[in-house]
Every structure is written in C-alpha cells, then in structure tokens.
C-alpha cells in the first residue's frame, strides 16, 4: 500500500475512532454514576448536529453549536428527571427497555421535526475541497478540527474528574453511592449532571462531525452501537481505555474497506463486539476481577 493511501485510511480511522471514543465516554459517564447503559446516547450526537444545522439560519456557526450543545444538555437533564430519577431500585432489564424507548421517541420526534432528508453543517474552514497537505497526503481541515475538538474534550474531562470538586463528587458516586450520600453529596443531582455532561459532549461531537459524516434523524443508532463496542473493548467505565479502543476500532474499520465491501463495514464492528463479549467481556484493558464485582 502506498504511503499516501495508507495515511488517508489512517486519518479516516482516527477521525471516526475519536468520535466513537466520545460516544463511549458518554456511555461511561452515565454508567459510572448510575450503573445504566443509556441506549439513547447516540441520539445526543444526532440532536447536536441537527439542532446546530437548524440554528445556523439565525446565528453564526460558533453560537449555533454552543446553543445546540446547551439545548441537548437540557434534553439530557429532562430525560433523567422525567424517566430515571424517581425509579427505586430498577432492574437492569427495565432500564434497558426504558432507555431504548427514549431513543425511539427522540428519533421519531426528530423524524417529524426534520424529516428524512440528509443534512450537514458547512465546513468550518473553506469548503469540501479545501485540503491541507500532511506528509504528502491531502487531508480536509475539518478532519483535523474533529480530531482536535474531540481530543480537547477528552483532556478536559480527565482534568474535570481529577481536579474539580464536582468531578470528584461524581467519581465518589461511581465508587460508592451510599458512602457518597453519607459524605453529603447529593447523588441524585450528580446523576442528572452526568446525563447533562454526556449529552453535552455528545452534542459537541455530533456538531463538529456533521460536515464530514452528515446528520440524519436515524444515525444515532449506528453510533450508539459503535460507541458501545468501544466502551466494552476498553472495559466498561474505563475512559482512557475507551480512547485507545476507539482509535483501534476506527482504524480497523477504515482499513477493512480495502478488503471488504463497504456494506459490511458495520458488520466488522459488530463482529468485533460479539467476539470481545464472548472471550473478554471485561474488555481488552479491564481486569476480570473488577468486572466480576460489577453489576451488569
């Protein structure tokens, strides 16, 4: 394989990989505070893209994306307050079914608001044909923006969880809910906040990727499955693992196009998911002892 073609595939892989990693981190944030896998996670990315496209008619691009992120965060908070907050000791099956129901409702609402058409934000810099040259291969600046923004989000989140008091409180809830309550942390508010946070980073990723991947009412499901694959690969709840696993999956997928038909690209990710679930359900980077103690 030529170097330039190799780099093309590599950059495509990294772009998708880091988006998958953002979805996976969104899963992890909610899983860590509640023990729930939020099957509606992919819909946050769709909402981020769609809302900012609609708002672009009224305001400049940065403002549109900011407002879209805020609106999606409110949607996330609303979901938690209406559907999750007041349920006492729900069974896992019940929560799976509820979050699947939420994802259907968001998707159907999006279908009735925006229709079936495929939309996209304009390229942030230049147009679809603008390119920068890296090591002799031409890359769209949008690709670099996606990689840059998502990397900043990842770094920001790790600082947030380490050094801010609210981040530390959220980690305390993840470690032990009852102990956190006894320390005076309002666990329920932390759960609401975790939904807002993962909705916010999802919406941001959905907006910056929109020029490349396009936005449509139903592209959340695919992203959610890829993101879940990545979350499992990295070990559920383990965010650095999710970044590594996301890049890995993105690159595998990108190179799979050179050997498999495009239609089977999704099947590759799902086959990886199934294989990992069968042989290492605690993830490539997780420890099996820790996984056994967790509730699924």
């Amino acid at each position, binding site marked *: 394989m030529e170097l330039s073609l190799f780099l093309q595939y590599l950059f495509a892989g990294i772009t998708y990989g880091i988006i998958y990693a953002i979805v996976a981190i969104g899963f992890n944030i909610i899983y860590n505070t509640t023990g729930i*896998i939020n099957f509606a996670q992919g819909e946050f990315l769709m909402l981020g893209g769609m809302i900012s496209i609609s708002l672009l008619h009224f305001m400049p691009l940065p403002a549109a994306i900011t407002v879209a992120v805020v609106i999606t965060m409110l949607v996330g908070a609303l979901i938690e307050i209406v*559907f999750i907050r007041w*349920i006492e000791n729900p*069974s*896992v*099956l*019940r929560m*799976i*079914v*509820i979050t*699947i*129901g*939420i*994802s*259907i*409702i968001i*998707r*159907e*609402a999006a279908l*009735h608001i925006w229709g079936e058409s495929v939309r996209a934000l304009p390229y942030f810099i230049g147009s679809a044909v603008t390119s920068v040259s890296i090591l002799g291969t031409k890359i769209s600046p949008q690709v670099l923006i996606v990689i840059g923004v998502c990397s900043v989000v990842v770094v920001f989140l790790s600082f947030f969880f380490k050094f801010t008091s609210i981040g530390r409180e959220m980690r305390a809830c993840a470690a032990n809910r009852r102990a956190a309550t006894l320390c005076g942390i309002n666990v329920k508010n932390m759960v609401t906040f975790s939904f807002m946070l993962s909705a916010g980073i999802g919406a941001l990723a959905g907006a910056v990727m929109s020029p490349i991947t396009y936005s449509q009412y139903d592209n959340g*499901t695919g992203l959610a*499955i890829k993101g*879940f694959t990545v979350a*499992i690969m990295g070990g559920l709840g383990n965010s650095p693992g999710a970044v590594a696993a996301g890049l890995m999956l993105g690159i595998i997928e990108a190179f799979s196009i050179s050997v498999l*038909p495009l*239609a*089977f690209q*999704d*099947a590759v990710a*799902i*086959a990886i*998911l*199934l294989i990992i*679930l*069968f042989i290492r*359900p605690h993830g490539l980077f997780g420890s099996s002892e820790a996984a056994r103690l967790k*509730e*699924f």
Partner: protein
Amino acid sequence: MEFIKRYLPIAGLLGIVIGVQLLTSATDTAYYLTQLTMAAYYSLLIIGLCVLMGYAGQISLGHAGFFAIGGYLSAALTSNDFSAYRETAVMRFMDTAGLLLHRQSLYGEPLLNIQPWPACIIAVVVAIIIAFLLGIPVLKLKGHYLAMATLGFGIIIFRVALAAEFFGEADGISEVPPFQLFPGVSVTGDFSDRVQNYYIAWGLLLLGLVLLLNLIHSRVGRALRSIHGSEEASEAIGVNTARYKLYTFVISAAFAAIAGSFLTHYNGGIGPSEAGVMKSVRYVAIVAVGGMANLWGVLIMGILLNFMSLRGMFGTYDDAVFGVILILIMLFAPQGILSLRIRNIFRTKRNDT
C-alpha cells in the same frame, strides 16, 4: 381437573377465532381477516419470545433476525433460479427426491426452484442451527451485554439481507410462490383463499400456544422460572441453567423462523425492514406490555397491537407509539398492562392519604 383448566381457555380461543370469522363473513367485512392472519403469524413469534423473556428471563433484541432467516431463506429458495447448479450432486439428489420445481420464465427459459416444503424446513433448520451456535456464547452474558450482543446479531442479519444479491438487496424478494401444505390447502395471499389462510395462521398459532403452555407447566417450565428468580440458586439446586436457557432460545428462534417463512409465503414477498432493529424492539415492547411471564396476556396484546398497527391506526407515528408504550409500561406497570387493576389504583391512593 388440571387438564380441563389448561385446555378450556384454548377451546374458548378457538371458539372466538371461529366466531370472528363467521362474524366477518356475515357483516361482509372479510378484509379484516388479512390483518388478523398477519397478526397471528407475528404473535407466533411473540409468544416464543415471551417464553424466552418472561419465563427464562433472557432478553433478545435480535428476534427479527430469526424471523428474517426463516422468511428470507424460504423466499430465496423458492424464488431464485438454481438452474446454474443443476449438475451439482446436491441438486441432482434433490431432483430425484422430488424436492425441486421445474418452471419456465416468461420468456420460456427453464427455471429451477426448490419446493416450498423443503425450503421451509431448510429455513427453520438453519435458524435453529444459528440459534444454537449463537446461543452457546451469548447466553453466558447478562443484562446490558446480552441485550447488545443480540442487538448486534440482529444488525448483522439486517446488513446481510441488505447487501447480499441472493436476498434481493434493498428491494427484498417479491413474487414468492404459494406454499402448498396439502393438496388443495396452500399459504397464499389470494383473496379467494382468505378464509382458509386465516384458519391456517390461527391453527398454527394455537398449536404453538398449546406447545408452549405444556412446556411452561412441565419440569422445564419450573426450571426456567427458577432461573428467572435466581440463576445462582437454581444452579445450586441442580438445574442445568445453561442447557435450559439454550433450549428456550432455540425454541423461540424456531417459532420466529416458522412465522417468518409462513408470513413470507402469505405476503408473497419479504423486504429488509422485516429484519430491522425496530421490529425486534417492537416484539420486545409487546412482550413487555403483555406482562413478560404471562403467555395469555402477551398473546392478547400481540394480536391487538399488531392488528391495530397493520390496520394503520397509528399512521406515521407507528414506531413512536411502540416507543411510548414501551416507556409507559416499564415506568408504571412493569408487570404488564393486565396487572393494572382499578381496585389497586384506589388502594394505593387510600394509603397515600
């Protein structure tokens, strides 16, 4: 006594089935039978899923995949032309056994298809083998992992149906021939055979129901309920949990494949949407509404909701309706809609005051 208790409701249902048919022919509304026939086939899948979800406690978000395996294989084997493979050993053997159908295309070229009976059997056997091979690793998983793994299986089947030329890609397969069960009795969408097909579908559904009712009242059924209660505890009292879960998974997959095969012959075609994720979610929703471990409740809801959806009562909000139903049931009545009793609502109110 036990015998009467178990079969009396079935006799009652049979009476209702016959009554509805007589009523529609008396009031000249026989067009309802078409949707009732289709609803019966979907309900066959749903009662199979009910035993898996409600009694064994294992969620499956991939049952549309098994439905599609049954439907697509039946359709492809009976409609695709195999004359290119005429000389292979398998084809020659099937020809001498009388399992092949020689036809002519519109332009007089010879076409070679497989007869519906062997095609249906091949389809169901393939679904059973896939369920068996998939079930061994998948059923070791729990909760979110099980849900995602079965969802992933469903998506792979959807992708294969969408991408494979053998299965007609995005168009699906149309002009599937009728399925002649016995001379004079065939599964087909012809209007003249509407009453006959109504009875075939409901007969099959009742047969499936009797099988499942017997299953859940047997040793297997008790084992399944103990698994649902606590897998560790039932393991400790000597129940082979892995084997019973696998049995149930395979049985429910076989029900789905049979339903898929018959409905495809009835509709005369199948498209990729039958394999879609939303279909699987819809089946899970109906099982949840019916009350999970309540075969009769699930059956009633399966017929009712499928009938309403097929009559187009939900309009463009079809999927949204199922999403809302799913959430409302899980939030307010996790034991199913039939568990809600007006008396109970009053009682909780009185306790509050």
